[in-house]
């Protein structure tokens, strides 16, 4: 009853081609945005904001970026963390070089640097495919991480070898550094993520997204239809890396406050890939679901044990958390191999036909 499209007729192609053609979905989106922009900063605790929401958004953005490449274009990448690193280091260099310019500008600009690097390492995708392509991105991953360690210029010769976010302000309020309030940092991150999500949605619903998916689903046929493979793939690499770069910059500046190269390690790349897969390849909303599951689940589990009144050691909790997360990932996949987004779709489908089973 609640979820019916009956009676909602489209009178123009424009309306039919909207991203959310069903009214209930649009209302849902508005509610979510309201919750995210108003309720969460108002009522969320500092812990919720800075240790749960901000990381989650950052990961979701990176996952989104990777999803554009892997989920939409079918190019497996294991270099996500490396590209995030490029964004982070670029932003660091830019903002320490030109401290007057607003940080937000640099955060977005740093995306272009990782886009460039992404394109470079995307070049082999013309010849190499599937899991084999992963090696090109792995090369990127390890090479970039090595650069972050080995080129002192990148971290302004800091003795610690780490980059530290200098204090920067927005409208006179600090958004980085220790004095930045979680609320403000959260809102900045949220705004950027929301903007980029909207842009991603524009892309995937238009010509560009279609060519990406065509390349993913059947590259030969796509080529025979006049979609040039290399430019299409490289564009995906560029856009994807752009997103990852911005996510990396956000991560260092608005979440960690500082970062050493180890932060951009291969395990991070894997983690984001898994967010994309479990969230749903080729689904924007899935990236958010995936980030929530992979990043959020361990946190929830960890806080669950003390709540249950179990007094087990931190290490045991960690072990059990690992086991449970592992088991749940497998469980989710068995229930729905195409990711959480697909579960979401099935639920909607069921709602639509409710009260009949099918």
């Amino acid at each position, binding site marked *: 009853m609640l979820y019916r499209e009956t009676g909602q007729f489209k009178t123009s192609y424009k309306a039919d081609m909207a991203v959310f053609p069903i009214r209930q979905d649009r209302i849902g989106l508005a509610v979510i945005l309201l919750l995210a922009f108003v309720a969460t900063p108002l009522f969320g605790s500092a812990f919720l904001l800075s240790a749960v929401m901000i990381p989650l958004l950052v990961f979701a953005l990176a996952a989104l970026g990777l999803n554009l490449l892997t989920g939409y274009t079918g190019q497996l990448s294991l270099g996500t963390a490396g590209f995030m690193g490029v964004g982070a280091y670029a932003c660091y260099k830019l903002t320490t070089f030109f401290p007057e310019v607003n940080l937000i500008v640099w955060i977005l600009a740093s995306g272009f640097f990782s886009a460039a690097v992404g394109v470079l390492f995307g070049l082999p995708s013309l010849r190499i495919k599937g899991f084999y392509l992963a090696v090109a991105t792995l090369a990127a991953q390890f090479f970039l991480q090595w650069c972050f360690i080995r080129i002192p210029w990148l971290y302004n010769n800091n003795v610690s070898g780490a980059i530290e976010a200098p204090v920067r302000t927005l409208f006179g309020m600090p958004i980085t550094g220790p004095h930045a309030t979680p609320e403000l940092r959260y809102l900045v991150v949220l705004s950027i993520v929301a903007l980029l999500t909207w842009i991603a949605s524009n892309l995937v619903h238009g010509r560009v997204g279609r060519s990406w998916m065509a390349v993913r689903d059947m590259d030969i046929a796509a080529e025979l239809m006049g979609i040039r493979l290399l430019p299409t793939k490289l564009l995906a690499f560029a856009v994807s890396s752009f997103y990852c770069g911005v996510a990396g910059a956000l991560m260092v500046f608005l979440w960690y406050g500082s970062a050493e190269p180890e932060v951009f390690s291969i395990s991070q790349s894997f983690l984001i890939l898994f967010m994309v897969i479990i969230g749903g390849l080729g689904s924007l909303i899935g990236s958010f679901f995936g980030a929530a599951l992979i990043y959020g689940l361990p946190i929830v589990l960890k806080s669950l044990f003390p709540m249950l009144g179990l007094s087990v050691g931190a290490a045991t909790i960690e072990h059990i958390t690992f086991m449970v997360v592992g088991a749940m990932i497998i469980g989710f996949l068995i229930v729905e191999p195409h990711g959480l987004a697909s579960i979401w779709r*099935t639920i909607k*489908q*069921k709602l639509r*036909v409710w009260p009949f089973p*099918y």
Partner: protein
Amino acid sequence: MAMDSSAAMTPPGDVNREAGRDVILAVNNIEVIYDHVILVLKGVSLEVPRGGVVALLGGNGAGKTTTLKAISNLLRAERGEVTRGSIMFQGERVDRMSPNELVRRGCIQVMEGRHCFGHLTIEENLLTGAFTRRDGAAAIRQDLEKVYGYFPRLRERRKSMAGYTSGGEQQMCAIGRALMSRPTLVLLDEPSMGLAPQIVGEIFEIVKELNASEGVSFLLAEQNTNMALKYATYGYILETGRVVMDGDAEMLRANADVKEFYLGVSEGDRKSFRAVKSYRRRKRWLT
């Protein structure tokens, strides 16, 4: 397989059929759902007598492939499920069995769309068909020769990777592969698809020969109704997940609707494809 299984082994649900007929496969009122929400088969029942050749006809999306997969238990691999009804093969309930056990018992499917192992050579493809057999390399070798006898083109291409062979060659390979398992019942899904007319004829001849000389039963889902009804003894017509008509092949061939929609002959004459109009007559069984 010997003919030792008697009428006593036929499932009880069969009593209303002609008594004493030996049924190798009985599908009773099955319902199939994909992805938990898409209902595709809405109560399909059919049976294949031992030593029979039964055709399953029907338009696109009628559910022929789904029916065959339900029988061979390949549905689960596609997130489909038999939610109601039962399937009996040689008097045994098989709807919970793994495909492997089914093949072992003599029921094998040739899937629609070939599905050869692209990275194996044609010969290796054929040999995998004998996976479940335990009767020794010599016997397998012998059958391999037999298959090459049926499809000389395969012998020429035996060392090629199946992935590089032409569509028709792959189709032959898929059929040959199934025959390698020495089946008692073959579920053939669109065997003629993509084959040259001459080969189509040969395949049906092979069906006839195996049926006659070795008593192999066949259930064929076929779009080439003409051929199918020429070689089959009995036929079922499936439309949108239901059996809408069944009967002896002769009878079906004589049916006016079947003639018009499936055989392309109206008033005794074959009509030209050029002459087709977009106008469509409703099928009588749909009313």
